[in-house]
């Protein structure tokens, strides 16, 4: 058996596709662009994943991207912020948030499209024939029955033991 794909699912990750690509931009620009978020020395030299084997490069790039997104609260070299810096930042964030939430609250529900310019005529015209309704109900019943008969046909074991001599 040849393994074609290995998929690693990390349960702690949830990916949401944002409508707005700006959603990943920091709210306020980073005051100290030279500071490093992680303590590990592995990342200090590698700004680009080095080209080793294909798998190794792929793994490295995944780890690199994850590291960029992780906020490490246990980082040893966390910068101590002074009280005024902290208050400053808090004020900047709330100003920016207030600005953004203003523009968000202006969204209105979608207006209803107009289906006709002759509502009285449309509503007065003949009702759907009862035979049509019966036919559609029959078709729906058949479809329901067919769907309820869908089953998994297990052919072989999902998990196998490798025989290592």
């Amino acid at each position, binding site marked *: 058996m040849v393994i074609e794909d290995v998929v690693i699912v990390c349960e702690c990750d949830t990916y949401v596709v944002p409508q707005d690509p700006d959603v990943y931009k920091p709210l306020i620009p980073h005051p100290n662009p030279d500071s490093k978020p992680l303590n590990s020395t592995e990342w200090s030299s590698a700004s680009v994943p080095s080209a080793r084997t294909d798998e190794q490069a792929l793994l490295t790039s995944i780890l690199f991207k994850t590291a960029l997104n992780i906020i490490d609260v246990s980082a040893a070299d966390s910068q101590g912020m002074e009280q005024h810096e902290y208050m400053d930042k808090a004020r900047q964030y709330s100003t920016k948030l207030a600005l953004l939430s203003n523009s968000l609250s202006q969204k209105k529900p979608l*207006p*209803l*499209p*107009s*289906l*006709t*310019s*002759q*509502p*009285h005529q*449309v*509503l*007065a*015209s003949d*009702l*759907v*024939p*009862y*035979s049509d*309704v019966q036919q559609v109900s029959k078709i729906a019943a058949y479809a329901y029955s067919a769907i309820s008969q869908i089953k998994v046909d297990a052919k072989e074991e999902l998990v196998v033991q490798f025989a290592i001599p």
Partner: protein
Amino acid sequence: MGLLIGNNKGNMTTSALTQGLERIPDQLGYLVISEDGVLASAGELENDEHTAGVIMQMVRTACRFRQQGAAEPPFKRMSVMLEDYVYTVTVSGQKVFVVKRQNNKREPVMV
């Protein structure tokens, strides 16, 4: 000019809307609903805000249907068919019109 039973605000626009609905044969009642609420109601649907709310939700959902890449919803009228009666629903000029009609299950007799 017919007398409207229901919460008619008495302006000409509303009665112009409802005159045509009143004349629908076999109608048992009707509703005219806008974004702000019920504009007019009569018959078995008089003051029926609950039905108005449910139908508004159904209309909003149905209006989201689109055929492949089309700009407009693919229907002119929505019929909610129950045992003895039908709610026929359409949208025109930002207003939802609902008429409750008798559901005649018999096939028309060819003479």
